């Protein structure tokens, strides 16, 4: 691997072993991808992340930090972590998960490359002790994992068990969200591939893809994840935002059956015509996307 001077995260360059076009055609949301990083890119990512100090990262994590502990005597347990106890949890063999560490140089680059809302892409860090790992599960996020130090073995489904999964799920758990239940009932677990992540490898895992991990040695990894921002959300949220301005669309549903006089007050056909006209207008469609992507808290 040749060293490259790097001062930003160029996703097109990171994906060059497969090519950006092929990535979107063959991998995006459908199939895992394993990519070696150039030395310069790994060095840039490590520098951007900064010292892998649990206390510092616990203080920086916007959505908090967690310790996962499971061993011969302790069933999987999740503890909240703060800067004062992060190292202690590391010392007792817990996996540490620092959620949403602000690393805009990395997350904004990925969001801009994907054409995704920046607020939907976050960076999180994992410390996995020797012997630690994760049980089989799938996530609701599109995940890009960069191995920073140590090594970790992943078993990853060749394809998603639930394509474009709207929620995450731990296999064997009785906790299944209502939206996931019908999709899971029809799902079959695809064959898995063993992937050994070494420092400087990038692994893309589409949401809905079953994976489990194990570390033979202490390991730090960076996870860049794109949390759900589905076309469905655009339709539900964006279109609602657009139509709520219309008194006609805010009107009460009337005349779905009922008295003939009430049926005369049924405006559905006019509303659907209005909706068709709106969706057929390219400028309106663009505005719909823009208003959805620019929502501050979406």
């Amino acid at each position, binding site marked *: 691997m040749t060293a490259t001077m790097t001062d930003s995260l160029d996703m097109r360059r990171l994906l060059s072993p497969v090519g950006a076009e092929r990535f979107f055609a063959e991998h995006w949301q459908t199939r895992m991808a394993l990519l070696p990083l150039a030395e310069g890119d790994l060095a840039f990512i490590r520098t951007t992340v900064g010292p892998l100090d649990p206390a510092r990262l616990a203080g920086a994590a916007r959505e908090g930090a967690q310790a996962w*502990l499971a*061993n*011969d*005597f*302790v*069933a*999987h*347990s*999740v*503890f*909240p972590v703060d800067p004062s*106890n992060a190292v*202690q*949890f590391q*010392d*007792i*063999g817990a996996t540490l998960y620092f959620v949403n560490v602000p690393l805009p140089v990395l997350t904004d680059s990925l969001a801009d490359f994907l054409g995704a809302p920046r607020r939907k892409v976050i960076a999180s860090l994992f410390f996995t002790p020797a012997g630690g790992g994760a049980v089989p599960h799938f996530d609701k996020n599109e995940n890009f994992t960069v191995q920073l130090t140590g090594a970790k073995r992943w078993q990853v489904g060749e394809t998603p068990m639930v394509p474009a999964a709207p929620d995450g799920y731990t296999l064997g758990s009785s906790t299944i969200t209502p939206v996931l239940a019908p999709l899971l009932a029809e799902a079959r677990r695809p064959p898995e591939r063993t992937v050994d992540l070494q420092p400087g490898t990038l692994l893309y895992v589409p949401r809905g893809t079953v994976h489990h991990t194990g570390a033979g040695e202490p390991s730090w990894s960076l996870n860049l994840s794109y949390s759900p921002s589905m076309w469905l959300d655009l339709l539900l949220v964006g279109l609602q935002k657009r139509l709520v301005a219309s008194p006609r669309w805010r009107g009460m549903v009337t005349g779905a059956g009922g008295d003939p006089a009430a049926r005369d007050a049924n405006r559905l056909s006019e509303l659907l015509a209005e909706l068709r006209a709106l969706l057929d207008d390219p400028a309106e469609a663009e505005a719909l996307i823009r208003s959805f992507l620019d929502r501050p808290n979406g």
Partner: protein
Amino acid sequence: MKIILPAATVNPVLAAPDFEAQWRALLKRIGALAAYPREEGRMQYVLVEADLSQITPIAEAVFRLVGVKPEFLPEIVPQPYYGFRGY
């Protein structure tokens, strides 16, 4: 911590006449502040205040007696409890 006790057919210790005494002795040994049995005692919620380094030893003591791994649920501790030391 949450402990789901196995059936006595799985672990005969639970059917022993002195199990209650053994259980109480265990709670004392691990420094339990309180125990809340649920579902006719099959599920036990035990409140402990332990140094992090004692989590696994406490779990091991439980495991040695009843043969199941306890799950630690720090989030069930009422918030004000965290502040007691500071009063």
